[in-house]
């Protein structure tokens, strides 16, 4: 039976069919749906881990224990999981071990555009890259075969367009595999120097074998066509195919590390000119040049962003597409905090107080956009807290009194807690606001260790954030309701003034959670409205401005949260008390 499946769902199906038993991940766009889909299979144990390092180690533990296991993450998640990866590369596997990493060329939902192929080279593990949903399924299965045959972790590299495109997939049944026997083997699994030296020799020998394997690997294919030679992989193959069709012959590489020297040299012999088409860095291109193959690559195509069939057609064939141009200034439509979002109240106050805000990764990064414009820095998961600590260490007591860190509940557990320990242990008088909306929001509502539920929605142990913060040495911990902006303002002012570090937990569930019921829309009393514009400063998409300058509530969007009514000084906006 053929089914239309998201690349991520197809990866999950491939894992299922391959007899995978354990999946542990931390959510991250565009990789999240793999693990969400896995959670629907009863045959596979699945979990949301606190971060990618824990997920990778958990899955790898299951591999050492004899099961096929897997973890998924976005590109920046692999930075967090790099530590176990580099040494698992030495120890190898018992049951097959596969890591999926989803890059985000074009940065649809990320803070950088790193090319994860470098990790395969750096950690010396093989990497497969599918170019559509059918290959997502097939390569997930192949990855386990390679893992067990060559005694190595295998990375499955995805990208936004592969993960989030649907294509036709043929389904098969699951193969049930017995657990492999676990035999104590310190030379393989205890990576202290004497043993690791032996394993490094193994790793180098394995790489040579994998290079040879490239020529027979079913993921590497030549697709015959015309006289233009193209070497490519992943989504770039689809763009090239769209642009050049049968005019080109393609060497489509599915095993992208290690690259097969033999295949590339054999292919190169047949063409006068070869184009390497790969998004982001020039990895295949550099390999070709190093092996004496003259190719055209980054002098035509960019290191930046996504490719397109249009660009390939233009650069290689010199053909340009005609399209309609309308001479009109079109306002941008950036993403914004949702109507009823509990984060809005905190950012409204922080903007009002004009404090320095050390930001983090999540929905609340949107607090950086106008009109809230509250955030000064955003780097990576957890950096809000440790970054603020560093800021305060050099800028001193005055700075400590006018600066805060903001971080979500899931991000705090991921890697914020270690920064807070640093604040307590190394004594900076820093103020941290945990935006606890009871869910992992931006990636689409995953449970986390603070929510009290596991990946399957079953009750689970919940981290008590107040007790945790106190336990690491923060004495001043208080909870506020972010919709009560007067209390938020008071709490921020008091904690900034306090002579020791503090944590403010702004707690209210995400407005999109099913348990959160919308209230009737806010109403406007035009007679009381002085058109001062304060209500627009809360930055709610449900408040439009009329031609006369009055607020108009979009009743399809308004959740009746009432934040705007608190910003209005003239009582012109009212919460509808009926039916609450």
């Amino acid at each position, binding site marked *: 039976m053929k089914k*239309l499946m998201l690349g991520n769902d197809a990866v999950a199906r491939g894992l299922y069919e391959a007899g995978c038993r354990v999946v542990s991940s931390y959510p991250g766009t565009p990789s999240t749906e793999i693990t969400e889909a896995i959670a629907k299979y009863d045959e596979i144990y699945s979990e949301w881990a606190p971060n990618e390092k824990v997920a990778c180690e958990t899955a790898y533990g299951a591999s050492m224990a004899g099961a096929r296991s897997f973890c998924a993450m976005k590109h920046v998640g692999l930075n967090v999981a790099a530590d176990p990866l580099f040494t698992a590369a030495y120890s190898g596997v018992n049951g097959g071990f596969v890591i999926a990493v989803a890059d985000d060329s074009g940065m649809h939902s990320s803070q950088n555009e790193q090319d994860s192929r470098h990790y395969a080279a750096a950690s010396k593990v093989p990497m497969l890259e599918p170019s559509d949903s059918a290959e997502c399924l097939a390569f997930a299965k192949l990855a386990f075969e390679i893992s067990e045959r060559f005694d190595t972790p295998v990375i499955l590299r995805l990208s936004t367009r592969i993960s*989030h495109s649907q*294509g*036709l997939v043929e389904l098969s049944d699951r193969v049930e595999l017995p657990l492999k026997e676990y035999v104590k083997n310190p030379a393989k699994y205890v990576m202290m120097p004497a043993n690791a030296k032996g394993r490094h020799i193994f790793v180098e020998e394995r790489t040579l074998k994998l290079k040879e394997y490239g020529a027979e690997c079913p993921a590497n294919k030549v697709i015959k066509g015309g006289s233009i030679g193209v070497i490519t992989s992943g989504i770039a193959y689809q763009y090239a*195919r769209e642009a050049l069709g049968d005019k080109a012959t393609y060497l489509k590489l599915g095993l992208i590390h290690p690259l097969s020297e033999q295949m590339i040299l054999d292919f190169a012999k047949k063409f006068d000119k070869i184009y390497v088409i790969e998004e982001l860095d020039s990895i295949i291109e550099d390999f070709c040049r190093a092996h004496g193959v003259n190719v055209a690559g980054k002098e035509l195509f960019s290191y930046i962003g996504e490719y397109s*069939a249009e660009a390939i057609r233009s650069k290689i064939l010199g053909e340009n597409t*005609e399209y309609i141009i309308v001479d009109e200034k079109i306002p941008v439509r950036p993403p914004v905090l949702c109507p009823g979002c509990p984060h809005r109240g905190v950012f409204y106050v922080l903007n009002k107080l004009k404090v320095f805000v050390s930001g983090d990764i999540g929905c609340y990064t949107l607090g950086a956009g106008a009109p809230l414009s509250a955030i000064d820095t955003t780097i990576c998961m957890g950096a809000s807290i440790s970054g603020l600590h560093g800021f305060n260490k050099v800028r001193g007591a005055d700075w400590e009194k006018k600066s805060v860190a903001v971080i979500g509940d899931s991000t705090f557990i991921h890697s914020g807690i270690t920064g807070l320990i640093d604040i307590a242990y190394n004594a900076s008088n820093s103020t941290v606001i945990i935006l606890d909306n009871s869910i992992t929001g931006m990636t689409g509502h995953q449970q986390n260790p603070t929510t009290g539920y596991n990946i399957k929605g079953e009750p689970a142990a919940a981290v008590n954030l107040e007790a945790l913060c106190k336990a690491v040495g923060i004495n001043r911990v208080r909870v506020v309701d972010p919709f009560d902006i007067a209390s938020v303002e008071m709490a921020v002012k008091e904690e900034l003034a306090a002579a020791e570090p503090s944590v403010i937990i702004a707690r209210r569930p995400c407005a999109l959670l099913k348990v959160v019921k919308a209230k009737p829309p806010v109403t406007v009393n035009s007679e009381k409205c002085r058109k001062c514009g304060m209500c627009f400063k809360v930055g709610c998409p449900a408040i439009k401005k009329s031609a006369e300058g009055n607020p108009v509530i979009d009743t*399809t969007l308004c959740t009746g949260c009432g934040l705007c009514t608190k910003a209005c000084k003239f009582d012109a906006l009212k919460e509808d008390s009926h039916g609450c």
Partner: protein
Amino acid sequence: MAVKSIMIVGVGGQGTLLASRIIGNALIDCGYDVKVSEVHGMSQRGGSVVTYVRYGEEVASPIVEKGGADIIVAFEQLEALRWISYLKPGGKMIINTQKIDPMPVIIGAAAYPEGILDTIKKSGVSYEAIDALSLANEAGNSKAVNVVLLGLMAKHSEIEKETWLKSLRNTVPERFLELNLKAFELGYQK
């Protein structure tokens, strides 16, 4: 058959993903190769969103590029204007007349363009405009805008109505089916 391309453009939260899934399932039923590309994560949250649907004998790229769409279904007027350069010469637009102000307009940093439908007409594009929000409300829920627009698009497609209805039944949760069938019909009869 040459590959055909449909684009669904709108504002995050308007239900463009569901619409693309219903279209995708109807096209598979007709025996086509199909690719659907969508956007998740940060790009939603009230931002400008686009979904691509491509179908034919064999589809390579899942992405529609400038000058490549046979049909653009715009869930909002400004988004119709934003994506107009993606329409193929001779292509058709289906436009929901609803206007949703983006944040720069709400805070007075930019103006919502006047007379968008006139601008589109002047550019020579053939379109059909529909007040899908009113029809969705008539069907029983303002969120059914997506299926009203789908109904109108279905009327202009070469695919039989029964195929669309079958896909709708298979894609939409049972408890919302009656509402969505009504919304589809209101769009289809327009």
